[in-house]
């Protein structure tokens, strides 16, 4: 436990120091963390054996919520924007989850996809409200009443995102170790037994779905504030597919997995765009094959080797 805490702290420290050596990495890693939160939400549901092919909708809802609050409601404080966006995303997560978590397997995946495409269509077509395909601009917010330059704010946002990784990651870790977290993976292994223990699988999944939407919402808000613009593409199905890929690549057995997957993909993407723009998808495909064949627990498996974790029986793999 102590060793894993040390390795986690070291990883967060590397993340914090990386932009000092390579400044261009700050934006790349901010987006990686933002998508990492959304992928963590997807990974939570994967623990219950549910694949969401529409989770980018909550990423988009978080991003649009930040934009609406800033432009329409006049809320300009950075902390309020992140907290508010998370709450709104969680609200929609619970609302959609009320009927989505009744379904399993392909039906769950496809219904999530369907709802996300409705959100995408609304964001694209309701021009007067969402700005249509032009999207909405998000101005640089204030920080406890102070107005910062964009570059200073980006630095603050980056380090806030790292603190949120540590804080929310710890809370999700505690949740997964709790009876409710164990009940979530129990849905996957034996839903009948869970009901016969007096536990509602529906409530268990609804809670997880709400939490996963909130996580995606945090990511969406961070992305909106970092990019300064939100677009309907945030909710497009390819973005949802990217989140599933990130979660699988990183591994779902631990909190660090989706973040590892996201950082890996964003860095590969950035490098590939610069040096091999046509080969980007091929590189990602090969990376995924390597992980499937040699790292059945995803990149998180490397993390486990580093911390010397012994038995991994019973914990979820890809």
């Amino acid at each position, binding site marked *: 436990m102590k060793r894993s805490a040390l390795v986690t702290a070291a990883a967060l420290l590397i993340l914090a120091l990386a932009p000092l050596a390579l400044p261009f990495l700050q934006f790349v890693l901010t987006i990686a963390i933002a998508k990492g939160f959304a992928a963590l939400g997807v990974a939570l549901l994967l623990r219950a054996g549910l694949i969401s092919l529409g989770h980018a909708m909550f990423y988009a809802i978080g991003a649009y919520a930040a934009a609406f609050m800033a432009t329409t409601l006049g809320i300009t404080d950075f902390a309020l924007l992140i907290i508010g966006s998370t709450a709104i995303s969680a609200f929609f997560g619970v609302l959609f989850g009320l009927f989505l978590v009744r379904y399993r397997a392909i039906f769950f995946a496809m219904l999530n996809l369907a709802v996300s495409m409705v959100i995408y269509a609304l964001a694209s077509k309701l021009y007067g409200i969402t700005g249509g395909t032009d999207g909405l601009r998000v101005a640089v917010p204030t920080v406890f009443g102070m107005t910062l330059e964009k570059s200073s704010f980006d630095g603050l946002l980056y380090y806030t995102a790292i603190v949120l990784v540590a804080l929310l990651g710890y809370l999700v870790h*505690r*949740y997964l170790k*709790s*009876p409710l977290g164990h009940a979530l993976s*129990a849905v996957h292994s034996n839903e009948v037994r*869970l009901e016969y*223990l*007096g536990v509602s699988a529906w409530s268990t999944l609804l*809670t997880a779905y709400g939490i996963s939407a909130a996580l995606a919402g945090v990511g969406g808000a961070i992305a909106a504030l970092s990019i300064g613009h939100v677009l309907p593409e945030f909710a497009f199905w390819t973005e949802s597919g990217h989140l599933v890929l990130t979660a699988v690549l990183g591994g779902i057995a631990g909190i660090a997995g989706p973040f590892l997957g996201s950082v890996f993909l964003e860095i590969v993407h950035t490098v590939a765009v610069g040096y091999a723009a046509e080969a980007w998808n091929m590189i990602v495909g090969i990376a995924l094959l390597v992980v499937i064949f040699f790292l059945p627990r995803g990149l998180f498996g490397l993390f486990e080797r580093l911390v010397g974790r012994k038995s991994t029986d*019973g914990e979820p793999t890809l």
Partner: protein
Amino acid sequence: MSDVLLKAENLEVAFGGVKAADGVNLTLNKGEFVAIIGPNGSGKTTFLNLCTGYIRPVSGHVWLGDKEITRMAPRQIARRGIARAFQIPQLFTDHTVVENVMLAIASREGIWQALRPLDRREYRAEALELLELLNLRDHAETIAGTLPEGLRKLADVTVAMALRPQLLLLDEPTSGVSALERFPLMDTLMKAMKARGVTALFVEHDMEIVENYADRVVVWNAGTVMAEGAPAEVMKDPRVLENVVGVA
């Protein structure tokens, strides 16, 4: 105060025209260990499903004590004190045996604890005590899905007993267990249930098990109760000998 724990009145249910329960009446008293026997397809497991809310009757009522539970969901009935062990053991196969039991304990105590760990001292101590009682202490850290069938049966019962039920329903506790293991398994189950004061209703095909362990036998045939009484008396009934024992 009444000693009646479970009461079924005029239960009726049919599957595609085949009546699995045709006006079934059955009463179970506190502290009893009652066996249900009958040919395959006679409705024995259906009765357990009706009592636990897995299927709902077309008509009739089920009472647990003075509370009607007829149309409740399995989880509501479980919270009211009926636990069940299955013919095919139902465990969380990716969890360890002790985690399975701790999750049952947590379910009993209230699952809505999002930030306290499942693996806490008091849950673990209670789970290990129960596993000791059912001779599973040495397998506490084994992944449940890797246990052999006999031990899986015991683990399934342990999980059910962790709910501290008033009534335990056992569906063929010795099926899939080798001939040599049947009696030790039943001895262990009986010892545990007596130690915890659990009333039990079990479906069984094995007449030797029924004769040795049941206080009372209920004979099922074509969705109805054909006979009931002490095992020695029931086994002499010509109708039972002809319709059930010959084919059971």
